[in-house]
């Protein structure tokens, strides 16, 4: 490695915008970001929605009128994507924990599948929502 990369050409700092992340790293950081967003504002918003859904017919109607707004639908669509990505990346993680798919090609393939399934199911959920 030392001979391949002479000292003056090595990066002096880690600039995240200059590093080309491999696919598993992208899946991993999205897993983390989606997890944090599902925690906040995800959980409190979910509880607000659940409360409105189950409290009374009036609050149920109010929830429906909020969810009809295109902006809240877009928001819901993103929430769906975060949830699905977190779920699929989590399933992938469980597989890795059990030593499935540890080889580089397999890890890349499963990363692709996580991203593709997350996106496709989000689109399907969007079609179902509208």
């Amino acid at each position, binding site marked *: 490695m030392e001979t391949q990369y002479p000292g003056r050409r090595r990066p002096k700092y880690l600039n995240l915008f200059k590093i080309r992340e491999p696919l598993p790293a992208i899946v991993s950081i999205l897993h983390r970001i989606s997890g*944090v967003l599902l925690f906040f504002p995800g959980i409190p918003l979910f509880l607000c929605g659940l*409360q409105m*859904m*189950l409290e*009374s017919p009036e609050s*149920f109607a109010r929830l429906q009128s909020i969810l009809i707004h295109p902006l809240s639908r877009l928001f819901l669509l993103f929430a769906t994507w975060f949830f699905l990505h977190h779920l699929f990346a*989590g*399933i992938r993680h469980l597989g890795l924990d059990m030593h499935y798919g540890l080889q580089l090609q397999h890890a890349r393939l499963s990363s692709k599948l996580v991203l593709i399934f997350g996106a496709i199911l989000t689109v399907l959920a969007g079609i179902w929502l509208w």
Partner: protein
Amino acid sequence: MVKPVNRIITGAHYGLRDWLVQRVTAVIMAVYTGLLIVLVVVYQPEGYEEFKSLFSIQWVKIASLLCFAGLCWHAWVGVRNVLMDYVHPMFIRLTLQVMCIVALLGYLIWFLDILWG
């Protein structure tokens, strides 16, 4: 001579438990998600009364609470890991961790109140 203790109060527990808890709660939530999808497909609830009666079934309430409690525990492990990675000053990290625990306990009580209140 007594060796100085170098364990950090906001650090990990240096063990396997949290790792395992995160995986077990993840499986519980994944199973519950599948269950909920089946319930919605079978019952096809549309109005208030139908949703209300669906979430009045006792085993649905218990399964929901199990899932939500699992979510809280899962979120705690995850958020703590994130805080340990990015927030280094001990006081700020501890404050954020305490805020997360208080919030999650509050959410759990809120959830109980919604389903049983």
